[in-house]
């Protein structure tokens, strides 16, 4: 700890901080622009100027930038000294000379850091009388709006996009007062993390284009704490609504998970919530709708038909749990393919039985050596890729720290590091984007990657120095063995149980060698691991077999489009053999026409629940609004069906029942405050105290003020009435603090800036390894399909996600479905010329255009996962290819 003095008051702060961090952590208001808690200091904007003094006898002091000043023992500054205040006011005045006076029509208005800092710095009279400089704006694609005239040149955008996230198609151009941030030519931003520019930019240069389509000011948004459903990472998000439409998604800071950032699938993939294809009414095929339809369903269930339930990895734990209770454990199936079920169960198996810990997303950034096996994390779990990009900087950064360069001195660290990365090794079926930062990489089919990774595990177990050998496996084994903190990353992307075991075995070998090793698995969907923990009687394939064996059962299908999960032949067979089918889902899809009954399910915007991410972290999401139709949380429908009730039980009751009946879920009852939680006597409002129009929003329909909806399931209220102080960390509906209207107000919710939220970061880990765990799992080298072509999925951040792919902005980024294959493979199969190729395994057959990609290993073809033309394929396919 260091003793510092701010305006003659003594404080104790942790060592190694700069004065801006220290002051901000102490809750003092000191304006800034270029500094960012995750990207640290570069001293560009000069807004955090303070007076610094040599000692208590120094009465003159000098202007110093707090962000570049060590918070050492005895550091003495003044924030309030007049020269510092004058300087900061003058600095804001300078920043404002070219800034447009367009706050009233700017999307950032009301949550603009520049507005806040202008007020805080005390500049209020314009002296500049000359013309403003103007810039041309660029079309940066469907996600981001660009308005360069508003730029105050803090350089945060380029530092995030290039330095932090590894982007290469964005930069800073020109010099002097003409500095320009954008692309060398107009076009879509290529980074998977471009949306963070919206939050990184302190003003309205980069704004959310999807929000703009149905724009609402921050203060008029009703917001709720939620969990992104775009992949298995479970980033914490804020959802915001007005007039029954989901308006946008923003980052909800969680220091253990996604911190300050989100990927573009998570941020912009919400628009399906507002889609016209939404199911909004309870319905009975060709007959009733609304209450009557639901009564008919209850009546049908009252006749005690034999039931079969299809659960879903994209439905909440509560919904799946209640379905399992309703249909009985023996009749509850996981709605994914046999192979996916097997692979996900294997992930759970090695995490539960193994002796290696799986780190949180935030912890991934702390490892120093990485080996990625089989997984294209940039496309399956993008935020893991962003975390890995930070991990790859750790060892190179040590060189800077050895030169006594401070941890916060960002530009100086990068100067020492230069382009050095890693050690970072990749062994994947195709070239992934992380190869930009890889020390070395190889590509192979499942068999060769299993062999390679088995060899790596073997070499580590044997120990010793293999430096003389330049073979890839030796190099990986050496790097991991030399590492202090190695990380193995894999996942279900190749749909191979063996790959999962191989990754676990490498990690286990390192654990046995005494390393502080971590292992990370990406699983296919937001609640895949939760489903595995809940347990089921089998996969969708098993369920289909069961209905074929015993036709006429009433099936209850929860948030599953069978045509997305399996081929249409099997899906149709399921519906043909089912008696009545009750489908609970949010969007019309190929399964809905086959249902006898439909219950409209809330998406993450209209429902609450618990999800378990790839780390085994249980996280709560809350509905942001009550829709004006039949839509309910799936668990609510199931509860009403189960109890033949007109109304569902309270959410806490269901969580309690679940926690009591599933041992692994015991801790979940303490995940967040219960519905009866109050601060004083008040609930936590989802809307800000400035929210306008509550009493008149419905006036075009009825002039009577409607009673605000009541949330019986959480401590949150749907209106602005309630306690406006800080909510418990799991239940923060939006970030705001007096004088801090922008996302920078997160500072005020943290114990120290960039650190955990007051009250601890939300979420509970359900899986921890045991010292006596298994370090080695048996691997079968998978050589059964010799001589056949192996078709593996290629993953796409935009397109491979079932629901996000139905969002308008995302749709603009989806690539056409094309098979990738190397020329050698084509030649071996006797294929020449342009056209389409067919892959045929006997059981599955698919015809698509193809493109030659020499990075694809011989004997492998890649088929995009989950696109409209490729959904329902079960990977891997072993077969042959021919010209169509």
């Amino acid at each position, binding site marked *: 700890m260091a003793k510092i003095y701010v305006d003659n008051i003594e404080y104790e702060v942790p060592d190694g901080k700069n004065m801006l961090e220290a002051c901000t952590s102490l809750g003092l208001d000191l304006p800034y622009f270029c500094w960012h808690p995750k990207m640290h200091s570069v*001293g560009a904007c000069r807004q955090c100027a303070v007076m610094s003094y040599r000692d208590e006898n120094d009465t003159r002091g000098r202007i110093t930038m707090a962000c570049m000043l060590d918070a050492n023992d005895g550091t003495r500054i003044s924030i309030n000294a007049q020269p510092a205040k004058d300087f900061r006011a*003058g600095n804001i005045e300078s920043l404002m000379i*070219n800034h447009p006076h367009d706050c009233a029509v700017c999307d950032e208005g009301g949550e603009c850091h520049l507005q806040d800092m202008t007020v805080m710095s005390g500049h209020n009279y314009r002296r500049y009388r000359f013309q403003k400089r103007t810039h041309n704006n660029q079309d940066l694609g469907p996600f981001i709006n660009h308005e360069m005239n508003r730029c105050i040149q803090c350089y945060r955008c380029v530092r995030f996009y290039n330095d932090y996230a590894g982007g290469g198609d964005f930069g800073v151009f020109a010099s002097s*007062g003409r500095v320009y941030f954008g692309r060398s030519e107009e076009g879509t931003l290529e980074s998977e993390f471009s949306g963070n520019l919206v939050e990184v930019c302190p003003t309205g240069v980069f704004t959310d284009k999807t929000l703009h389509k149905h724009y609402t000011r921050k203060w008029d948004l009703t917001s709720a704490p939620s969990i992104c459903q775009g992949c298995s990472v479970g980033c914490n998000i804020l959802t915001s609504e007005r007039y029954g439409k989901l308006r946008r998604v923003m980052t909800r800071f969680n220091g253990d998970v996604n911190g300050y950032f989100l990927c573009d699938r998570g941020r912009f993939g919400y628009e399906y919530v507002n889609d016209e294809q939404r199911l909004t009414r309870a319905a009975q095929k060709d007959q009733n709708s609304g209450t009557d339809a639901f009564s008919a369903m209850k009546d049908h269930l009252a006749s005690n038909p034999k039931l079969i339930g299809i659960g879903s990895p994209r439905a909440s734990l509560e919904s799946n749990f209640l379905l399992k209770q309703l249909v009985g454990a023996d009749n509850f199936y996981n709605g994914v393919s046999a192979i996916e079920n097997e692979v996900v169960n294997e992930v759970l198996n090695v995490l539960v039985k193994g002796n290696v810990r799986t780190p949180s997303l935030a912890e991934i950034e702390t490892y120093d050596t990485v080996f990625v096996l089989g997984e294209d994390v940039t496309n399956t779990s993008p935020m893991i890729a962003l975390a890995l990009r930070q991990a790859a900087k750790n060892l190179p950064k040590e060189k800077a720290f050895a030169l006594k360069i401070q941890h916060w001195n960002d530009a100086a660290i990068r100067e*020492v590091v230069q382009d050095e990365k890693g050690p970072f090794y990749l062994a994947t079926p195709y070239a992934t984007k992380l190869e930009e930062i890889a020390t070395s990489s190889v590509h192979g089919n499942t068999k060769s990657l299993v062999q390679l990774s088995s060899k790596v595990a073997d070499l580590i177990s044997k120990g010793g120095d293999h430096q003389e050998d330049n073979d890839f496996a030796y190099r990986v084994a050496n790097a991991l063995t030399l590492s202090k903190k190695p990380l193995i990353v894999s996942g279900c992307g190749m749909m191979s149980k063996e790959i999962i075991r191989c990754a676990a075995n490498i990690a286990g070998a390192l654990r046995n060698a005494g390393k502080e090793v971590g292992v990370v698995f990406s699983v296919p969907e937001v609640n895949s691991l939760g489903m595995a923990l809940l347990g089921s009687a089998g996969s969708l394939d098993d369920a289909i077999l069961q209905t074929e064996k015993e036709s006429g059962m009433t099936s209850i299908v929860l948030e599953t489009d069978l045509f997305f999960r399996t081929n249409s032949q099997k899906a149709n067979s399921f519906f043909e053999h089912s008696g009545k089918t009750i489908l609970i889902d949010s969007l019309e899809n190929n399964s809905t026409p086959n249902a006898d009954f439909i219950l409209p399910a809330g998406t993450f915007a209209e429902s609450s629940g618990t999800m378990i991410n790839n780390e085994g972290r249980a996280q709560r999401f809350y509905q942001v609004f009550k829709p004006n139709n039949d839509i309910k949380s799936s668990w609510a429908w199931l509860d009403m069906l189960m109890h033949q009730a007109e109304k569902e039980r309270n959410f806490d009751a269901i969580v309690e029942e679940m926690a009591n009946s599933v041992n692994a879920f015991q801790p979940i009852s303490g995940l967040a405050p219960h519905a009866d939680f109050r601060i004083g006597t008040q609930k936590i409002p989802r809307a800000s105290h400035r929210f306008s129009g509550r009493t008149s929003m419905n006036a075009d329909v009825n002039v009577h003020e409607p009673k605000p909806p009541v949330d019986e399931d959480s401590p949150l209220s749907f209106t602005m009435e309630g306690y406006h102080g800080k909510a418990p960390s799991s239940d923060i509906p939006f970030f705001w603090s007096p004088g801090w209207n922008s996302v920078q107000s997160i500072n005020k919710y943290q114990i120290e800036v960039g650190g955990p939220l007051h009250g601890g970061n939300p979420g509970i880990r359900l899986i921890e390894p045991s010292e006596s765990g298994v370090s080695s799992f048996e691997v079968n080298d998978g050589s059964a399909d010799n001589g056949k072509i192996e078709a593996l999925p290629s993953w796409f951040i935009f397109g491979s996600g079932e629901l996000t792919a139905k969002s308008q902005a995302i749709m603009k980024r989806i690539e056409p479905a094309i098979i990738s294959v190397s020329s050698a493979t084509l030649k071996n199969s006797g294929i020449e010329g342009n056209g389409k190729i067919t892959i045929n395994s006997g059981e599955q057959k698919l015809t698509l255009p193809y493109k030659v990609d020499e990075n694809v290993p011989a004997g492998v073809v890649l088929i995009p996962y989950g696109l409209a033309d490729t959904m329902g394929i079960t990977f891997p396919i072993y077969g042959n290819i021919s010209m169509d």
Partner: protein
Amino acid sequence: MEKPLTEHIKNDGTPLSLKEYEAKGGYEGLKKALKMTPAEVLTVVKDSKLRGRGGAGFPTGMKWSFVPMGDNAPPVKYLVANGDEMEPGTFKDRLLIEGNPHQLIEGMIISAYTIGANMSYIFLRWAYHLAAKRVLAALDEAYKAGYLGKNILGSGYSLDMDLHTSVGRYICGEETALLNALEGKRANPRNKPPFPQVSGLFGKPTIVNNIETYCNIPHILAKGAEWYISISKSEGGGGTKLYGASGKVKNPAIWELPLGTTLGEIIEEHAGGMQDGYKLRGLLPGGASTDFLTPDHFNIKMDFEEVAKAGSRMGTGTIIVMDDKTCPVGMCLNLEQFFAQESCGWCTPCREGLPWTAKILLALEEGRGKPEDIDHLTFQTHYNAPGNTFCALAPGAMEPLQSALKYFREDFEEHIHTHQCKYKH
């Protein structure tokens, strides 16, 4: 009077060839240095009281002493010559490079040997085409003669040297911006610390010195520190200095004179005084980014201490003379437009403050000045003061303006009250 740096430069405009240079005692300093240890060479340079000739006057030996040496020192180090010379009114390095490129090369080899660098770069101003040509030819000769490359003169010491021609930005003269430019990055300055001696070019220990500084080194080694101090008239530093004068003087030129020669002597004797019909109103003693001095300062010594005491900086030692028929506001406008254009755009005061300053001065010149403008110009000189900005560019830009406001305030006021510039009529 000794003129070690320039005495051999030929009058016919051609550079000294390697043979000619060797005939005048060239590379003797290097031979002597290579027989000494780097630490011994460093001691000589420290004893000589050589101070950097780029403008800041930092003691050269002390600068070098911060480079990590010994067995644990980083294996890769760099030495860089700053030949960016884009300071308006300054053209001393050009004379040295064009006239005697081997003197520079020899100085750099000795310096690189002292800090243990094996790679060196000459960073040259874009417009210096002739100098570039001559450096390349001299490098070629030096490599062939074994002064550069592997195992120099059998000493076991190796050094490579390359020429890098800039694309032409004033900020590249700032040593850390220069290093970024040399790396192919934007020429933005870096924060210090870390200093380049610790993390410089490509993050490795690096020494950057001015061309003229390096040109002193061979002579210090050849003739010793005591001799070097003896040829100076300054208390604060040894050696000679290249002084220059431009403007309406009779004989605008560059002269090598003892460090500490008085301002009056340079203007009156060497520059020959003002041209007929002109009176000297003020002068910038060391390039565009130094405060104005006036004829009242003629008796001060042109060295780092005395010029500073008089409220300015010796800078590059190349004087820009302002006569009585030149508008001080117009001169400031000219300078501030230059500095505003050359700001790298990194920090707010410089990026926003300099264009604003230039716009106000233009308004004054065009008769659009307002009474509050003088206060605002004064504000800018404080706002852009040293420490407030990221590097020294903006504080330098404010030096002529703040002193013009002091010495020629009536001109600013007159522009505002009469809504015109009287010098234009």
